[in-house]
């Protein structure tokens, strides 16, 4: 087994940590811990981007890492914490299927994504191409998290985690997208969160709860 350079090992380690965090979020019961895990995921992403920037000598990735740090480790978790505090939601997260089944489904999705990503990763010319499978897996896991949760905030965090996974996929397959696009995406995410914040208050005002079962009244046959 040829020894791979230290920075490649670190990136592999961070990718594995990212996947682990995605599973941890899937199995998490408490909302505050969920938020902290999301922030940790952002941190892993930042470190990974910074290491790639250092190893491949692409300075624009430093900006990208800085943007991720600012947005996903500082601003978004802060916004969400404020929201959680104002809405006073600290309940245990309810789910549609129990935790062991969710985890088994997660494993199936991970295997599926690894298979899907393999031929693409073969074509990549980056050194981090092997982590494309992990990126896809975390996207799928976040998607699973969105589907199996009943309350609003975990669904939103699943959505944001999906975006994390996509960002990681971009970094691992193509060393990130052009800066202007990344700025646009970051802006979209930020505005989306602000709108969601407003939205949660509206929902809470109307229903006195953020349980999404209240939001299932509109059906096909009226």
């Amino acid at each position, binding site marked *: 087994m040829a020894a791979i350079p230290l920075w490649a090992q670190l990136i592999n*380690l961070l990718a594995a940590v990212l996947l682990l965090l995605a*599973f941890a979020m899937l199995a998490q019961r408490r909302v505050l811990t969920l938020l902290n895990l999301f922030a940790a995921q952002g941190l892993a992403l930042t470190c990974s981007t910074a290491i790639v920037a250092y190893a491949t000598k692409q300075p624009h990735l430093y900006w990208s890492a800085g943007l991720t740090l600012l947005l996903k480790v500082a601003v978004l978790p802060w916004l969400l914490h404020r929201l959680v505090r104002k809405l006073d939601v600290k309940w245990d997260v309810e789910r549609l299927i129990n*935790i062991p089944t969710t985890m*088994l489904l997660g*494993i199936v999705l991970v295997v599926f994504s*690894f298979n899907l990503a393999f031929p693409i990763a073969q074509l990549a010319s980056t050194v981090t191409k*092997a*982590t494309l499978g*992990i990126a896809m897996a975390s996207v799928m896991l976040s998607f699973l998290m969105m589907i199996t949760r009943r309350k609003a905030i975990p669904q939103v965090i699943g959505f944001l985690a999906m975006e994390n996974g996509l960002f990681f996929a971009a970094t691992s397959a193509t060393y990130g997208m052009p800066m202007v696009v990344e700025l646009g995406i970051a802006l979209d995410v930020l505005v989306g969160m602000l709108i969601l914040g407003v939205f949660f208050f509206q929902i809470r005002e109307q229903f006195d709860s953020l349980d999404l079962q209240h939001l299932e009244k509109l059906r096909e046959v009226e």
Partner: protein
Amino acid sequence: MTPSALLSQVLQLAMALVLAPLLVGWVDQCRAWLQNKRAPSMLLPYRMITKLFHKDAVVAESASPIFRVTPYIVFAAMVLAAAIVPSLATDLPFGRAADAIALVGVFALARVFIALAAMDIGTAFGSMGARREMFIGFLAEPALLMVLFTASLICGSTSLPTIVETLAHRDIAIYPSLAFAGVAFTMVSLAENARIPIDNPATHLELTMIHEAMILEYSARHLALIEWASALKLFNYSCIGLALFLPFGIAEGSADWLAILGATPILIAKLGVGGLALALVETLSAKLRIFRAPEFLGTAFLLAVLGMLVNQLLGS
């Protein structure tokens, strides 16, 4: 079979038999230190076993031969496991008896017999204990298998000596798959050895027992053998963990006597640290409700599978 191999086998077996109760005593001692209590002497398990051997066995009238035979089978299984797992050296004559998968089978054998014996008398607590044990085991065994699969995939063989030798020679590097497998293995061994957070070994309340409930009916020499076998199980799991994740210091191949003798204090030191770590984990966690045990073990299974998948994908 070279003389050094014979020596390593005999020495390893003797060490296991002698040191296992001491390991249990050491863990109790550490736990007492951490909780600011005074522990009984570390040699207490020895005294317990000796005392039990001197007593007269009382067996229920409705007991079948399984009940009497089980302690011997369980003890024999644990001794076989101790003989297979490379803790001092990798060149073991018994090593050809079983590979990693068969090792899991040996543990399963012991579990099956003890569960049968628990149900044999027909008491309520025995059956309850047997059910819970099987419940835990059903979830813990696949996780253990996955951990061993990960190690086997990395080393290209399921034979334990080969695994240990390959892992000992890897470059110092960060291997996420082994990290995942390590955490998974720790969780599984906590479950299998009836430690907090799955089961409290010091509990007196029958309704919270898993392992203890199965052996409520045993006495005297039978109980002594079973207690010794439990200590051996803890010893074996620790040695498996050390062999997979901290294999430095184990004498390799056809080593000379000096290396084998030198491996002994290293093993004792590693076990000491491991015991302290176990006591730490037990002190810091609370016992889980039995219905949360599947989640705990599910997480362990998940981590093990992840380790395997990550290894397949990233090659590390």
